[in-house]
């Protein structure tokens, strides 16, 4: 990547030539950051990002998050906002902006004018850290509700059940006493805390949704509407059979036409990131299973890829093969379920999803024999995998991948793609143009259905993918039908990959060295990502050289894929909302984390 080797050693997280170009363009403003990437002053960030996008080809703002540095030896307390920008091919540029911690002073310019993908991510940083983004068109809290007390990911904000900075907690070794439930530790005997002097009568409970409704009423108004009809706001969810869980959309309707749609997040916000900062590195693996709970294997994998980057460990070949096998099986499960539930949402009732669930059971049987659990596999480990393949596993996997799944997938593809009703409901609905998709940070099948051949397995090959022979499936219309059809294309490619890896799996060790339960990771930071079935799943990890991560951020695919939902549904009929949402394929566990 870098031309001059002696400097490349010092510079991580940004290609050398990019850094030089930045330094030439912004002399004295850009410096190397502490661990990775370039440090940019807050007032210059929009210019730097524009320069990177327009002149150096960094067209994906993949990840935007922050870290709160407090009580770190040798570091002034500050909040570090980090941007990860990617080119179509090869390498990322990490930009850091350091801003003061104090609420009120913590603000920086928003990059939403350049990258709509920052829209939700900046809202998340505001929600979790209290950092204000000047110029953000709609700065509301994303995951918690308005009025929630405090900014949870700040290091000085402690939960009610807080017991210690790192696990294990001391109370797990009681000295001659009884163990007690966490509830007992809290003054209110529950996971609840109110600010001092708070009065339940004086509080305005409408505050939680006020900003949302203000936004709903004001956004995309058409003052020159020929017919002066009243518009109404309805809430779609959080309990609705077609929202894949607890997703809520506030919709402003004019008759049956959608004028504005605002997704509301946070109904499954389970504080993964705060808990992840207290877990040891290994303890985070079972937690990643619970992100996108359909694809536990690829979640494990994405975290392990990031962790191995920090550790610098090599992985034995057999382990890589096993990872590819389970990863591709996971992709098949995900895409079949996505197609199945999509048909369910279109009103085909359960037929499609029942066919998909049957194949899922077969693949879960494989996964259970391998890892011991049906959904929460906890299977990958830094430097390899947890278990070797059991006896007879390969034969069963081959029978599935060579014979049964192709047959079933073909049947299902006929069932859905040739169906006139499905075609009528999906063709031309929810069109996502490629430029909007890229700017909105959309990845995975949704992006590829818009005609962008961007697949991390090809763009930045990890594991074995540079040796494997497969095509990146692309469709060009970018409508709901293509987003459905591309999942079948991808299943065929996955089966092609499986044919290669199942035949050639070598013998050998499955783990380089067995990781200790208290693994120490060298200080540094990294952003590791893989092509999960739904798109780019990335983990941003900061290590201070201790047993636990200092910052553990999940770049969620499903959340970023929803950035353009509002634009995709504008002007459609209300029944098409479900079509568009179903074609995006989201898992709430990953959206809200």
């Amino acid at each position, binding site marked *: 990547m870098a031309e001059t080797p002696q400097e490349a050693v010092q510079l991580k997280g940004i290609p050398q030539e990019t850094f030089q170009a930045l330094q030439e363009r912004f002399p004295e403003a850009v410096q190397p950051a502490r661990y990775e990437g370039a440090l940019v002053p807050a007032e210059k960030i929009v210019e730097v990002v524009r320069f990177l996008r327009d002149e150096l080809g960094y067209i994906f703002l993949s990840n935007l998050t922050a870290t709160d540095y407090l009580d770190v030896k040798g570091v002034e307390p500050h909040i570090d906002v980090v941007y990860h920008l990617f080119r179509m091919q090869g390498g990322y540029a990490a930009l850091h902006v350091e801003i003061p911690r104090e609420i009120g002073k913590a603000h920086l310019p928003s990059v939403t004018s350049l990258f709509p993908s920052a829209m939700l991510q900046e809202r998340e940083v505001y929600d979790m850290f209290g950092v204000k983004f000047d110029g953000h068109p709609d700065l509301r809290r994303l995951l918690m509700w308005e009025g929630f007390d405090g900014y949870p990911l700040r290091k000085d904000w402690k939960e009610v059940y807080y017991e210690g900075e790192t696990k294990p907690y001391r109370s797990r070794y009681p000295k001659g006493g009884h163990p007690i439930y966490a509830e007992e530790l809290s003054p209110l005997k529950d996971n609840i*805390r109110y600010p001092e002097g708070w009065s339940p009568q004086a509080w305005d409970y409408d505050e939680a949704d006020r900003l949302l409704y203000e936004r709903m009423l004001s956004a995309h108004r058409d003052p020159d509407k020929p017919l002066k009809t009243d518009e109404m706001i309805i809430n779609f969810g959080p*309990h609705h059979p077609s929202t894949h869980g607890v997703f809520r959309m506030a919709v402003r309707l004019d008759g049956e036409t959608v004028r504005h749609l605002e997704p509301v997040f946070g109904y499954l916000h389970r504080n993964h990131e705060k808990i992840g900062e207290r877990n040891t590195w290994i303890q985070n693996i079972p937690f990643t299973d619970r992100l996108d709970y359909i694809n536990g294997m690829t979640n494990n994998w994405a975290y392990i890829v990031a962790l191995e980057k920090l550790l610098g460990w090599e992985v034995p070949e057999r382990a890589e093969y096993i990872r590819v096998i389970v990863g591709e099986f996971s992709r098949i499960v995900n895409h079949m379920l996505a197609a199945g539930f999509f048909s369910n949402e279109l009103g085909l009732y359960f037929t499609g999803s029942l066919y998909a669930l049957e194949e899922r059971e077969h693949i879960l049987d494989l996964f259970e024999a391998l890892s011991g659990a049906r959904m929460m596999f906890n299977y990958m480990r830094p430097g390899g995998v947890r278990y070797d393949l059991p006896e007879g596993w390969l034969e069963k996997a081959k029978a599935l991948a060579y014979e049964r799944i192709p047959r079933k997938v073909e049947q299902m593809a006929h069932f859905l793609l040739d169906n006139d009703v499905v075609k009528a409901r999906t063709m031309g609905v929810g069109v996502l143009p490629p430029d909007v998709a890229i700017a909105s940070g959309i990845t995975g099948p949704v992006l590829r259905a818009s005609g962008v051949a961007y697949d991390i397995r090809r763009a930045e090959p990890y594991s074995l993918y540079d040796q494997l022979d497969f095509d990146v499936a692309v469709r060009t219309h970018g409508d709901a039908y293509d987003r459905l059809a591309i999942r079948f294309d991808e299943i065929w490619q996955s089966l092609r990959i499986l044919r290669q890896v199942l035949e050639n799996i070598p013998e050998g060790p499955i783990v380089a060295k067995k990781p200790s339960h208290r693994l120490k990771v060298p200080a540094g930071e990294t952003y590791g990502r893989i092509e999960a079935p739904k798109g780019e799943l990335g983990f941003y990890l900061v290590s201070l050289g201790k047993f636990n991560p200092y910052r553990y951020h999940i770049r969620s695919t499903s959340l970023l894929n929803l950035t353009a939902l509002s634009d995709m549904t504008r002007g459609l009929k209300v029944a098409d909302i479900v079509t568009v949402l179903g074609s995006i394929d989201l898992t709430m566990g990953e959206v809200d984390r």
Partner: protein
Amino acid sequence: MRDVENLPEIPPELQGTVKLTTFDQLFAWARKRSLWPMLFGLACCAFEMIAAAASRYDIARFGMEIMRPSPRQADLLIVSGTVTKKMAPQVVRLYNQMPEPKYVIAMGACAISGGPFKEGYAVVSGVDKLLPVDVYIPGCPPRPEALIHAFLALHARFEHERIRDIKAYQKGVDDGVPIPALGPDLVDWRRFEPLMEAAGEKEAVHG
């Protein structure tokens, strides 16, 4: 409404044509075979619930295949996943909208106690802090078989249940569970009951 043991004996010539039972038992028998769960997925466990409804485990064998998304047509709430503070008002509202007699199954570690996310800031420490729970299923997530086992446990419970004990058939007005609100943290009104009654705001909150 007599107990089964106290039923009069059937004369031998009528055995095979006449069967005596109690009203409670008849009611329980009918209810066992027509328990309608609500299609209410919260998190990971929802997928195991769906798997239980799909072709392999097929809860249609127990007369439960119709998963109704509307709470008004359901009498079993399977809390399948993490109840977050933001979701808590909706969970309680849905429960209140279900017709009596209604049952709640807490499926998985999250619904029981908050599970792996208990220590966090955004999760309710168990759905039983909000609703009365009938059956708990530990596991993360429990296998579909475990869910079916919980249904069987619930069925077993019906056999000992008497109609007069069911709250819905008793006198008096049932307000349901007060719906929590979102303040600086989750506000459970039962915690502030005396206070709210004094202020006369209880009705406003329940509506």
